[in-house]
C-alpha cells in the first residue's frame, strides 16, 4: 500500500443558521493515497464543496480528524493553515481566479511570493512550461483565452509542488473541447505522480478519475474505483435524480450541467 496523503476520520461540519443546525458534513471517512486521481461528486448540497474547503485547509471541521501528509490539520490556527495551503495544496477554481492586470508568470509566482521565495521567475516559468504556456508568460489574463487562463491557474497550483492538487469544477466554465484539453493536463500531471482531487458534479468529468467518491446529504454514498461496471451504472442512472439542478455561474448553462448522461460517447 502506498503512502497516505489524506486520512479523514469522522469529519463533520455543522453550520448554525438561526435555530437550525445544518449538517453540511456528517461523519465522513476517506483515505487518499499518494498519486491517486480522485473525483468527489454529488448534487448540490451534498457536502462536496464543504469537503473541498476542509481538504483545502480553508476551513476547520466541527469534529473529526483530518491528517494531511501525516500532520493533523484539523486543529491548526489561521497562520498554520495558511502555511499548509501554501506548501501542500494547489487550488484550481472553476472561474480561474487569476489576478487581473498581472502577467501570467506573475500570477503563477503568487504562491512562491507567499512562501517568501527570493527567486520566483525561474520556477514560475518552469510551471508555465509544464502546462505549455511558456510562450505567453507576459500576457495578462484579459489577453488569454479561457483555456489558457485555466492552464495558468494550473501552473500556479503546481508551482510550489504541493502534495495535492485540488480542482473545483475546473472545466465548468469552458467549452467541451477546451475542457478536454484541461483534463488532458490533469492526466499528464497524474501520470507524473501528482495527487489530484477533482470536485465536480459533471459525471463525464468525474469518470475520467480513477476513483469516485459520491456524496449525498453530507455523507459518502459510495466510494469506488472507476471501472466498466461503475461507468455503466452511472451512465444509465442520473446522478441527480431528485434534487434541483446545481446553479452554476459562468457560461455553463444549467442544461449543459445536467447532461452528463447525454454525453457518454466522449468518455
Amino acid at each position: 500500500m502506498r503512502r497516505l496523503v489524506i486520512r479523514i476520520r469522522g469529519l463533520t461540519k455543522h453550520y448554525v443558521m438561526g435555530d437550525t443546525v445544518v449538517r453540511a458534513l456528517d461523519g465522513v471517512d476517506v483515505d487518499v493515497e499518494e498519486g491517486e486521481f480522485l473525483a468527489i461528486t454529488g448534487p448540490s448540497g451534498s457536502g462536496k464543496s464543504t469537503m473541498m474547503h476542509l481538504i483545502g485547509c480553508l476551513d476547520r471541521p466541527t469534529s473529526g480528524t483530518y491528517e494531511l501528509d501525516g500532520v493533523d490539520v484539523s486543529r491548526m490556527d489561521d497562520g498554520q493553515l495558511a502555511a499548509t495551503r501554501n506548501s501542500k495544496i494547489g487550488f484550481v477554481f472553476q472561474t480561474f481566479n487569476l489576478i487581473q492586470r498581472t502577467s501570467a508568470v506573475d500570477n503563477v509566482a503568487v504562491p512562491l511570493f507567499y512562501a517568501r521565495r527570493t527567486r520566483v521567475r525561474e520556477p514560475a516559468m518552469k510551471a508555465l512550461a509544464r502546462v505549455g504556456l511558456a510562450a505567453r508568460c507576459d500576457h495578462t489574463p484579459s489577453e488569454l483565452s479561457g483555456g489558457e487562463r485555466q492552464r495558468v491557474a494550473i501552473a500556479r497550483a503546481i508551482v510550489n509542488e504541493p502534495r495535492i492538487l485540488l480542482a473545483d469544477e475546473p472545466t465548468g466554465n469552458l467549452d467541451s473541447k477546451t475542457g478536454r484539453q484541461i483534463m488532458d493536463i490533469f492526466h499528464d500531471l497524474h501520470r507524473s505522480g501528482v495527487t489530484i482531487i477533482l470536485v465536480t458534479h459533471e459525471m463525464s468529468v468525474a469518470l475520467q478519475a480513477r476513483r469516485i467518491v459520491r456524496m449525498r446529504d453530507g455523507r459518502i454514498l459510495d466510494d469506488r474505483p472507476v471501472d466498466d461496471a461503475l461507468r455503466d451504472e452511472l451512465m444509465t442512472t442520473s446522478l441527480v435524480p431528485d434534487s434541483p439542478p446545481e446553479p452554476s455561474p459562468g457560461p455553463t448553462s444549467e442544461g449543459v450541467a445536467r447532461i452528463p448522461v447525454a454525453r457518454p460517447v466522449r468518455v
Partner: protein
Amino acid sequence: MFFLRIVLMALRSLRIHPLRTVLATLGVIIGVAAVVSAMSILEGTRSEVEGRFATLGSNKLFVFPGIQRDRGRAVGNVNTLKLDDADEIARACPSVASASPQVTSASLVKFLSKNTQASVLGTSETYADINHYQVAEGRFITRDDIVGEDSVVVLGWRVKRDLFGGRPALGEVIKISGLLGSRGFRVIGVMEKKGNIGWTDVDRQVVVPVTTAMKKLYGLDAVSMILCESKSAENADIEAAKSEIKKLLRQRHRVRPGQQDDFQVQAQGEFLKQFSQMQNIFAVVLYSIAGISLVVGGIGIMNIMLVAVTERTREIGVRMAMGARRADVLRQFLIEAGIVSFLGGGLGVLLGWGMAQMLEQTTRILNTSTTTQAISWALSMATITGLVSGIYPAYKASKLDPVEALRYE
C-alpha cells in the same frame, strides 16, 4: 525584496483606477499643497525679514515717539522726540556709540526737466557711519551743514543716475518739493550703490541735514525716529544702552514715576522676536487648516480603500487560498493606502510649490522658499495619514473568511 514586491503589487492595483485614485487622494493633495505653500511663504518671509535685519546690523536700537492714547485707544503719534534728544543720547549714554535722528518723507526731486520720486531723509552726520554706508563722490553732510541748516543734499546712487545719467552731479542744484514748497538743494555728494538698509532702498533716497528737512521742507518740530548704535552687539551692552536711553528720555521729557513712557525703545532682536511670534501665530493657523484637510484626505483614502477591499474580496480569497496569511493581506492593503497617499502627497508638493511660485510672481512682494525639509515633512505627513486611514480597511480585509471571500461575486 518581499516589501518591494508588495510595493510593486500595490502600484499595479492602483493603475486599475487612476482617476478614482486621484479623486480619492484629492484631500491629501490639497492638504499637502496647503502645507507646502504655507511653509514656503513662511520660510520665504522669514529669510527675507532676517536678511533685512542683517543689513541693519545687530547692535541697533530704535527710539520711536510714544503712541498717544485716549482711554486706551491709540489716537496718533506724539511729537515727543526732539532733535536735542538725539544729541543728548549720544553724549550722555555711555553704552550708546552714536545716535542719528531721522525724519523721512517721500518727495519729488527735480533736476532741470528730469524728475524722480525719492525718499527724503533728514538726518545727522552720524547716519553714514552707523549704517556703514559710504560716499562714492564728494562728501556726506557735516555738523556744520546741520547747524547752518544748509540746503545741501547727498544723492542715492539711483537718484543720481536717474537725474544726471553719466554727467557729474556735484555742485548742481536740484529741487525737492516738501510741504513748505519746492526748494533748491546743492549736491555735495553721491553715495555708493548699496541696495536695502532695513526696509529702505537707500539707492532711491536723498539725504539732507535734519534741521533743513524739519524747518525748511516739512515744518516739523519733532523727529520720527532716533537710530542708535550700542557700543557692541553684546546683549548686555544693548540692554544697558536701552535702559540708559529710557532713563535719560524720561528725565528729559519729565515723565513722572508711575507714568507711561512717551516713547518706545526697541532693540533689533526684539523686532525679530516680535516678528517670529507673529509668524508662529500664522503658522499655527495655516497648519491647522492643512491638518484639517489632511484629516479629510485621510477619510477619502479610507473610503477608497474600503471600496477596494470590497471589490477585491475574491482576490483576497484567492491570495489566502494560495497561502497568504492574514498579516500578508493586512500589510498589502496598508502599504497600498500608504502609497496612494504618498503619491497624492507628491502631487500636493508640486501643486503647493506651484502655488507658492504663482503667489511670488503675481504679488511681487511675497518671497517664498520651498525647502526640502518642508517637502519631506509634507510627504511623511501624507504617508502617515494614508497608513492611519488604511488600518481599518486593511484589518477588515485580513479578517475575511477565505471560504466566504472565494464565494464572493
